């Protein structure tokens, strides 16, 4: 139970030259084809094992939603086939089939029926749905007096009232307020731990990383990369900035981790390293130690402006801290071709004991999405060790001053 097998899947929409040519094709007694196929997805192959959690990422228009719709059975594939085993539940469009004139309770029954549940089954699940949605007495009020957050909460509760064998989620992880987001996220996590197979489309890197063991990157309707989350997500991040003639390279870096480099190469990082206060290059840093991140940049073209930014990431790729010279109010204007620039960032490594990496980027304005000269993941890898501080947990070092009084 809970497997997904996708083999040679393709989806094309029919494009007709005019409305009349469709009629001509329908009425023609011969098998004449008067349409051109417009391919959305092509040659998609992957399989998901029971209990596995797989993320799907890709820029807008890559075909993610179409893929999910094909798997849930809303649309039919043009080529290939999809085999799923077990009960599939989808969080694609929350609140589908809700009717504003009916009460929350009636809507719960309605939606449940639309999902193929029996009345008795819904009645049995109702207390749990009410409790999870936390809408109190509103359950007997018509839906039109609900706030949008309450509607979403109710919709999420109904859709996840039963644990499915396969749960398909499309950007539904961020519903409601922060409190409910934690709660809904918790429920999805709970399902996964209980053995539900997860297939998640999200732009939220953190969500994908904390849930998924494997990520599939779609681009232009094809699988561009499939594998371990960090490498695929870095590739995706690089794709986000793809513009004309940018190359994306992935190479095996230190410690066997995949390093992603992308950009136009109009400016390049020629050297980057972490240095101690004594000026020695270091791979290991003590908690709270003063360090310097030194970067040498070569400018290969006349540019309007240049910003250098970096992110410190933990082992899972979560960003612990990031900034850039734009935020630090030091954007360089009109760097000339052939110029060499050195940046030195001095900071205290107020980090918890763990392994960290630094992603560095050269771009214009405040983010790499506008003009990306170079983006380099895993450009520095270093460890923080706790040799001289009181023991603590976590990735941030926030030593408190303690006052304790006993009466």
């Amino acid at each position, binding site marked *: 139970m809970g497997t997904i097998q996708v083999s040679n899947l393709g989806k094309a*929409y*029919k494009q007709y030259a005019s*409305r009349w040519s*469709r*009629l001509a094709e*329908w009425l023609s007694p011969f098998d004449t084809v008067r349409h051109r196929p417009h391919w959305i997805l092509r040659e998609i192959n992957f399989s998901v094992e029971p209990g596995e959690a797989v993320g799907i990422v890709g820029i807008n228009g890559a075909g993610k939603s179409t893929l999910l*719709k094909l798997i*849930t*059975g*809303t*649309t*039919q594939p043009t080529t290939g086939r999809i085999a799923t085993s077990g009960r599939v539940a*989808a969080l*694609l*469009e929350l609140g*589908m*089939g809700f*009717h504003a*004139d*009916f009460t929350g309770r*009636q809507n719960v*029954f*309605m939606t449940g*029926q*639309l999902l*193929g*549940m*029996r*009345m008795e089954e819904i009645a049995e699940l109702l207390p749990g749905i009410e409790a999870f949605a936390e809408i109190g007495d509103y359950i007997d009020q018509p839906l039109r007096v609900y706030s949008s957050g309450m509607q979403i909460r109710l919709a999420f509760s109904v859709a996840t009232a039963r644990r499915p064998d396969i749960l398909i989620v499309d950007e539904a992880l961020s519903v409601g307020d922060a409190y409910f987001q934690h709660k809904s996220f918790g429920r999805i996590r709970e399902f996964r731990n209980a053995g539900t197979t997860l297939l998640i489309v999200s732009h939220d890197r953190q969500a994908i990383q904390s849930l998924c063991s494997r990520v599939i990157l779609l681009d232009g309707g094809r699988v561009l990369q499939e594998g371990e989350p960090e490498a695929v997500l870095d590739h995706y991040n690089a794709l986000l900035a793809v513009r004309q003639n940018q190359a994306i390279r992935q190479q095996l870096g230190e410690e066997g981790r995949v390093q992603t480099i992308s950009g136009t190469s109009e400016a390049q990082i020629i050297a980057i390293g972490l240095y101690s206060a004594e000026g020695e290059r270091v791979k290991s840093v003590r908690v709270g130690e003063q360090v310097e991140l030194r970067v040498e940049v070569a400018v290969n073209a006349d540019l309007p402006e240049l910003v250098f930014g970096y992110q410190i990431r933990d082992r899972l790729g979560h960003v612990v801290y990031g900034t850039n010279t734009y935020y630090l109010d030091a954007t360089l204007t009109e760097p000339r071709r052939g110029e060499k620039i050195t940046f030195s960032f001095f900071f205290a490594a107020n980090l918890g004991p763990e392994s960290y990496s630094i992603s560095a980027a050269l771009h214009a304005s405040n983010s790499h999405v506008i003009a990306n000269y170079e983006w380099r993941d895993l450009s520095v890898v270093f460890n923080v060790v706790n040799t001289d501080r009181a023991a603590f947990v976590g990735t941030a070092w926030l030593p408190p001053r303690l006052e304790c009084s006993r009466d």
Partner: protein
Amino acid sequence: MNSLLSALWAYRGFVLGSVGREFQSRYRNSLLGAAWMVLNPLSMVVVYTVIFSKLMRARLPGANGSFAYSIYLCAGVFAWGLFSEIVSNGQNVFLANANLLKKLSFPRLCLPVIVVCNALLNFGIIFSLLLLLILLLTGHLPGLPLLALIPVLILQVTFSVGLGVILGVLNVFFRDVGQSFGIIIQFWFWFTPIVYPITIVPEKIRWLLTLNPMTHLIGAYQSVLVSGKYPDWPSCLWVAAVSLLLCVLALRLFRRHAGEMVDEL
């Protein structure tokens, strides 16, 4: 076919629930509620009766009793109402539920089934009202021939739903279908002996009217309700043949284009 039926059966709760909700939602925010359901056709019948039998002094040839024409009219108008409700909702059913079809996976044939159930529910209420009216006006009911209306009703639903689904599928791809349907059904109404008896149509073109399946269906209601006679069964065979053909065609069209339909919505 079997899988289609079992899928529908699995979603019976959804179908029944939808029918109930549609019924409720139609009258939910009105003061008179379900009374509107009766008031609409009743007003139509009053208008027709007053204009035709009182003002124009139209009499139903061969029928005695002053209310014969009213009953004739009611039988025709109400039976036509069932047909036109199924077909006009059917031709629009996939477009109207585009959102549901695009976002959720469920047996698509539930939608026309819901349309039929809704129409039958409305017809049931109106028809019982009509029987009550007949009882009040003439003092007696048609008796046993009334049961003959059950097969007629089945035939009528088959015919209507076949046509409705065909138009519904076509309408997704060619919106002209929906536009032209509004015009065609007007002509069709007057091309069927509902307001007038078939006997006033010149002999020469009467055969044209007998090609129209609705002539026989409406005729069956009229003969049972007005004169208490059994329907003309042989003519119903023609209707049965047409209905069967339409249903087969509808199912083929639906199966072939159901997938593409979602892409087009």
